[in-house]
């Protein structure tokens, strides 16, 4: 009896092990939702070492091993106002350990950053790119601009402008990408 249970348990585990990466692969095979461009071939993500409003420095290289959403924004950008709340809502649905999120404000002071986030996404924090050089290196298509960086540190997707990250299509894609399942 015990042997039978063990065999079934092993079989179930083997099936689950086979299925687990399929979620991510399936997300990529079915393609991203409209508004997300596939970067082909993938390219190494530029360096990103910036401080947040508390002076704490983040180096994106330290986030290797998981997917990272890098998002460039500015408070004067109208579509940024619409998109930021969707990023907060997405954050609530997809845990940090699956998908890291790095917000980068382009060339504004702490006052502007604080005032904007307090209204649009009070739970989120942002790095500051005071001279705009990091934004220049990443060269988003405009502001807002978002990139999805894979666990190996390569840019795999780029957003066409602002997106609704909490939409069903984006959540499903991100869950599939990060192996979270449906």
């Amino acid at each position, binding site marked *: 009896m015990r042997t039978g249970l063990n065999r079934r348990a092993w079989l179930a585990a083997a099936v689950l092990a086979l299925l687990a990466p399929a979620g991510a692969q399936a997300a990529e095979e079915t393609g991203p939702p*409209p*508004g997300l*461009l596939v970067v082909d071939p993938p390219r190494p993500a530029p360096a990103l070492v910036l401080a947040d409003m508390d002076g704490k420095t983040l180096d994106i290289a330290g986030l290797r091993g998981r997917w990272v959403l890098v998002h460039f924004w*500015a*408070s*004067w*950008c*109208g*579509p*940024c*106002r*619409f*998109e930021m709340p969707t990023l907060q809502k997405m954050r609530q649905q997809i845990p940090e350990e699956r998908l890291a999120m790095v917000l980068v404000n*382009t*060339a*504004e*002071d702490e006052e*502007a950053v604080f*005032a904007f986030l307090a209204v649009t996404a009070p739970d989120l924090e942002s790095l500051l*790119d*005071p*001279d*705009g*050089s990091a*934004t*220049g290196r990443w060269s*988003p*298509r*405009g*502001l*807002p*601009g978002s990139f999805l960086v894979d666990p190996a540190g390569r840019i795999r997707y780029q957003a*066409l*402008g*602002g*997106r*609704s990250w909490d939409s069903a299509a984006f959540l499903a894609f991100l869950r599939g990408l990060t192996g979270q399942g449906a």
Partner: protein
Amino acid sequence: MGKGGSGAAAIALCAVLVLASFGTGAQTRPKRTGGTVQDGVRVWNRAPSGDGMAAFYQARGFPPEAIAEIRSHCLLTFGLHNQRADKIWLDLKRWRFQGPDGRELQRVSEADWRVRWNRLGLAAGYRATFRWTQLPEQRDLHPDEPVGGNLALPRVDGPIQVTARFATGPAGQGDDLVIRFEPLQCGPA
């Protein structure tokens, strides 16, 4: 956002709303309306006042000499949304600007602005903000992708005719798309 008195703040808010309707290269939510559609490309434009533009950049801490430089030009705001099924290629070198006397007006390019900012010693952060509020010099526009921003011309009195040519197709080898904007006037200085 704004600094200074309520009047300046109101002007700054209007200026922000002008730019905010585009962001740069941004998809608006909710869907944008207004403008016209020519050959599958939605286009719209505005001529902000000098006060409005100045208030916007002042609110971002730009120094007075940079504000004066910006105000000395005619800044026009453009938005485009590629609603076609194929790519189009934005290249500002292929845009033509004709003044009220029929003569061609020379646009101030990103390189030209760099010369101006070098002369003024403008700090990098302000240059970055300014750059991201401008229409990009060159860009492909994927289907359903918008782009917006300002471009600068010499100040003239009277209508300005703007004709924009875009290459089409995946490698820009398709037929040109020609868009003619409604004549614009420089906003009040």
